[in-house]
């Protein structure tokens, strides 16, 4: 029943409206057939993340917290130390508190990137448009990581430059600059990525956010109640490997005897995220959407 037709009449105005008209026994669509790839999924996810207001809100609050608290902490110290405060530490460390609070925003955005699609039913549309489930999660991960990293880096660099200029402390070395800006930004973006992956596993925004805030704070809180001498070792480990303490490692150049030092927190977070990501991929393939 196929009659030869000129291929792809791009210029001819097609019957888009599909209005009641003469029946076409054969129908030629002017839309070029494209073999879809990761690039298409990335473009789609970029449109999604930039077109909802919650992205702007969470990132806006994040920048406000990081920059506001980072500058305020440094300003407070600068105002109250009249004499030359000969400290071992650099002024980069004042960025820590803002980032710690701000990380909750990144966690929220990460979780929402995946879990909100389950809440709204969008996930069915997404998976119909792109049946390769792994590609969807990968595209989400790449887009989110890029956004989180760029925003964190911009805020962290701004705070670091201002703090170093304001506070009279030891001048940071090149390595310290790298750790205190790029290092923490990768760490925070990875924490957000972990949240995104947990969101994909839990499929429920509030539940996944609660879990991630628990991961962030619970080790410290639990350690506070470990009075027993026999638990001293565990208490020590909980404190040292808690996310707030790992974050602070990026601002200290001293090498401690136990616990993570140097770039360790980054490798730990990378390993955990990769493992959970693999688990999420396996679950995504197995479960119904």
């Amino acid at each position, binding site marked *: 029943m196929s009659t030869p037709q000129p291929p792809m009449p791009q210029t001819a105005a097609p019957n888009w409206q599909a209005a009641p008209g003469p029946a076409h026994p054969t*129908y030629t669509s002017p839309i070029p057939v494209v073999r879809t790839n990761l690039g298409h999924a990335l473009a789609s996810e970029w449109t999604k993340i930039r*077109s909802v207001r*919650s992205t702007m809100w969470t990132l806006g609050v994040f920048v406000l917290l990081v920059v506001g608290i980072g500058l305020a902490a440094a300003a407070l110290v600068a105002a109250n130390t009249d004499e030359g405060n000969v400290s071992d530490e650099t002024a980069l460390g004042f960025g820590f508190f803002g980032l710690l609070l701000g990380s909750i925003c990144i966690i929220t955005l990460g979780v929402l990137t995946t879990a909100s699609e389950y809440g709204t*039913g*969008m996930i069915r549309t997404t998976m*119909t*448009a*792109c049946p390769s489930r792994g590609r969807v999660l990968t595209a989400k991960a790449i887009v989110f990581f890029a956004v989180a990293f760029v925003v964190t880096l911009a805020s962290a660099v701004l705070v670091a430059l201002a703090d170093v200029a304001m506070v009279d402390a030891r001048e940071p070395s090149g390595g310290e600059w790298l750790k205190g800006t790029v290092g923490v930004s990768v760490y925070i973006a990875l924490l957000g990525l972990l949240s995104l992956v947990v969101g994909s596993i839990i499929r429920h925004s509030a539940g996944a956010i609660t879990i991630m805030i628990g991961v962030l704070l619970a080790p410290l809180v639990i350690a506070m109640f470990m009075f027993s001498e026999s638990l001293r070792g565990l208490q020590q480990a909980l404190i040292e490997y808690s996310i707030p303490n790992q974050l602070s490692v990026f601002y200290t150049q001293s090498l401690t005897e136990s616990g993570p030092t140097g770039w360790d927190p980054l490798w730990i977070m990378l390993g955990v995220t990769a493992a959970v990501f693999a688990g999420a991929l396996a679950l995504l393939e197995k479960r119904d959407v």
Partner: protein
Amino acid sequence: MSRFSVGGMIELTGLTKRYGEKVAVNNLTFGVRPGIVTGFLGPNGAGKSTTMRMILGLDRPTAGDVRIDGKHYDQLKDPLTYIGALLEAKAWHGGRSAYNHLLCLAQSNGIPGSRVREVLDTVGLTAVAKKKTKGFSMGMGQRLGIAGALLGDPRILMFDEPVNGLDPEGIHWIRNLMKSLAAQGRTVFVSSHLMSEMALTADHLVVIGQGRLLADTSMPDFIARNSRAYVRIRTPQRERLLDVLHEAGITAVENGNGTLEVDGGKSEQIGELAARHQVVLHELSPQQASLEEAFMQLTAESVEYHAHTEAPTRPPQQRQQQWGADWKRS
């Protein structure tokens, strides 16, 4: 060569889906052909949506197989230009505008952005394209869902309950849309729980109940078989009328509530017979069993059958009594 010169077949073979003990879809085997509108009919909870989700690769079948032109859905390299689907109403983020929702879909399949405006125009949402979809009415939501299905100008279209929430004008529009899409040589597969709706749009009918296939037939066949015409008669002289009818070679069936029913459209003949024999008639009315009734009968049987196979030793009445007793005690 036309893209639609071959293909557009959906084929289900022994498709089954279980959720724990519950069987949602039970051994479905049927095909959906291009060029016609195929209605997919069943009461709520019959397994229509589950079947459609399995066709789209969203739910994995417990057993059996569903293929689109011989391929599984996730093997399609250009899914949106191959199949467009309206699944459930409002399957999108309410904070995103209609335009951006369609744009992200278009991008995921390499469909040019200009197409987004075209489908928005087709479904009549151009004026609210930049508005958040949160504020959309049910009907507007359906239109946006349909726009998403049309986005890739696909050869196969699936609509799950498309008339839900549409106003009469919208219902008229979607009916014509489906018919014209089929007339263009596309495959149109549309689900509904309303027989009357299907009678107006579908050329072929697939009926399921309790996840089972009950009928797979052309619409004219279904109508011929199920829309029985009969004459309803009420008379105080029942015995006399029965005799008269019998003499004339007409069989009347007694219907429980004191009325008689005669198959076929013989009301004139019966009226004349009654007049000639001076039989008093209180009612003589030609009736048409509606397709809706036929459909309900068809699906009710499946429900009954299902209950008996599950609990053969325990009649359902007894069970109901126990429930009542429990309720009284508590």
